[in-house]
């Protein structure tokens, strides 16, 4: 009885749930990532890192949970901070820029499938906010909007240093967008689709008689490296952080304070999660676990292990989350390992190394595919 009564509303419930998870992953991960960035860098540099913000309700005992409450304290500080606005700024664009910076970062996660299709009461729930046929194109279209946020921020804040940072940012982001797009073309040729969930399904196939999963990382290793480098450059993080260059110019958001600065800051961390999600989907098999079929594990040497469908789906969602968190960790790791490129080096790496390499990747893939 109840099942039939709910049935007409199920698609909407599914959509809302997808939205909640799809927005929840980047938003909920971004906060702890700011903590992870500080704490992880401390561990790399043999320090202790932030560990003092106590749990406010229980005063008698000093509960700090490894400093995990620091992001909360940071947010409270940013929100309650005075928002100073320079007299000379272009008010409209100045207020608009942080929104434009956050928007593309959040919206690109819509095409990332974070789990397999689940069938509940005879209806299919696709764990993906938007199943767009041209999903990859949507990704590039939206991520290229991010350059507006940075450029407008630098332009509108009437500050030469901000302008300088914005110029650097726009040049860098536009340069690396070319490479970013070209590095995926090989992958598109291999899987013959532009739809992210089809990518993940395609990566469920196996090579060499079922022994090796046909993941993007194994089919297109060069594509993965170039994509990873280009997306870090897009996100303006070390070693491509000369846009901010804390020690010499302070970047396009010098004039921002309070939560408006916080939004630029948040956008960077959301983008880390989004990059991780996209790389997972395209190159690391998305929610696929090697040898885990719809009915359970089936190993190429003949062994098999049956599992209920809901358990398989849960495992696959967990696998996606694990891969995303791992890639976030890896991006932080990269940031605290590498020194910053000089501006001419950024351009040289982008145009004279990565672009030819990505073209080469396309050609080699095409030749292999033809044969």
């Amino acid at each position, binding site marked *: 009885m109840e099942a039939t009564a709910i049935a007409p509303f199920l698609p909407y419930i599914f959509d809302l749930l997808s939205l909640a998870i799809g927005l929840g992953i980047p938003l909920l991960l971004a906060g702890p990532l700011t903590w992870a960035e500080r704490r992880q860098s401390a561990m790399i540099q*043999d320090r202790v890192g932030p560990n003092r913000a106590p749990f406010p309700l229980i005063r008698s005992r000093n509960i700090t949970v490894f400093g995990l409450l620091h992001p909360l304290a940071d947010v409270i500080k940013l929100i309650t901070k005075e928002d100073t606005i320079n007299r000379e700024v272009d008010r409209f664009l100045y207020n608009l820029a942080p929104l434009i910076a956050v928007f593309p970062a959040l919206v690109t996660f819509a095409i990332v499938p974070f789990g397999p299709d689940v069938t509940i009461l005879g209806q299919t729930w696709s764990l993906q906010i938007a199943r767009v046929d041209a999903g990859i194109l949507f990704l590039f279209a939206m991520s290229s909007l991010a350059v507006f946020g940075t450029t407008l921020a630098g332009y509108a804040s009437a500050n030469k240093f901000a302008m300088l940072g914005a110029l650097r940012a726009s040049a860098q982001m536009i340069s690396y967008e070319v490479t970013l797009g070209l590095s995926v073309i090989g992958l598109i040729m291999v899987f013959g689709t532009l739809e992210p969930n089809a990518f993940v399904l395609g990566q469920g196939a196996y090579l060499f008689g079922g022994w090796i999963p046909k993941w993007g990382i194994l089919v297109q290793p060069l594509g993965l490296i170039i994509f990873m480098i280009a997306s870090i450059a897009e996100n303006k993080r070390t070693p491509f952080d000369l846009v901010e260059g804390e020690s010499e110019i302070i970047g396009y958001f010098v004039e921002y304070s309070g939560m408006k600065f916080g939004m630029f800051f948040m956008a960077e961390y959301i983008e880390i999660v989004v990059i991780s999600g996209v790389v997972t989907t395209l190159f690391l098999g998305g929610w696929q676990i090697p040898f885990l079929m719809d009915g359970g594990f089936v190993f190429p040497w003949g062994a098999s292990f049956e599992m209920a469908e809901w358990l398989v789906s849960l495992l696959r969602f967990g696998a996606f989350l694990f891969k995303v968190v791992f890639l976030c960790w890896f991006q932080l790791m990269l940031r605290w*390992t590498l020194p910053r490129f000089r501006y001419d080096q950024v351009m040289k790496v982008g145009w004279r190394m990565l672009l030819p390499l990505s073209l080469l990747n396309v050609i080699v893939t095409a030749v292999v595919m033809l044969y």
Partner: protein
Amino acid sequence: MGHAKPVESPTANITYRVLNPDYGVFERAFLPAIAAGLGTTIRHFFANVTTRKYIRTIEYPDNPVEYPQRFRGMHRLVPREDGKPRCVACFMCQTACPARCIHIVGGETADQSIEKFPIVFEIDELRCVVCGLCVEACPCDAIRMDTGIHPVPVTSRQEGLFGKRDLLGIPSREERKSGRRDTTSRPPGTAAGTGRKDRAHGDGGAGGSAGGFGEH
């Protein structure tokens, strides 16, 4: 490794060499070097996350380190068995103090083995220069600096004045560790009860823990 070519300086007649190392393909490909760097950082990361191997930070208020044995910390007055201070108000420490931070008012007692006792014994910890001369000077081993703690921070000058009762209440390092007050402890060679030096040992002035000062 690299070649150096001489460059003529336009301003002075100096020839200097510019080192322009000729990086090979391996170095210029960045990736192997990045992998090596990642190896180092990941090693440090996991070693520190699991066992805090390389971290040398002293987390002071949470996990304070034990100070060395000879650390001169906060003063304390050593009590007798009856809980009163060993001090006999001889003014030796007050005289020795270069910072003039000790203030004693002596009084007489009927106890013939003690004769005098301090009515007031104040140390201004804000003026104290932590030289330890008071400990050297004391003939009764009545004042020590073996507490192993700092003088505590205060919010007014008045709070910096530590009276007889305060100074008696501070435990020694060993007492703090064992959790009980020890009124019978005394260095070898002191007479029972009074805490005075047994003159038979002829060891005059230097008492307490930090010997060696002024022994010549």
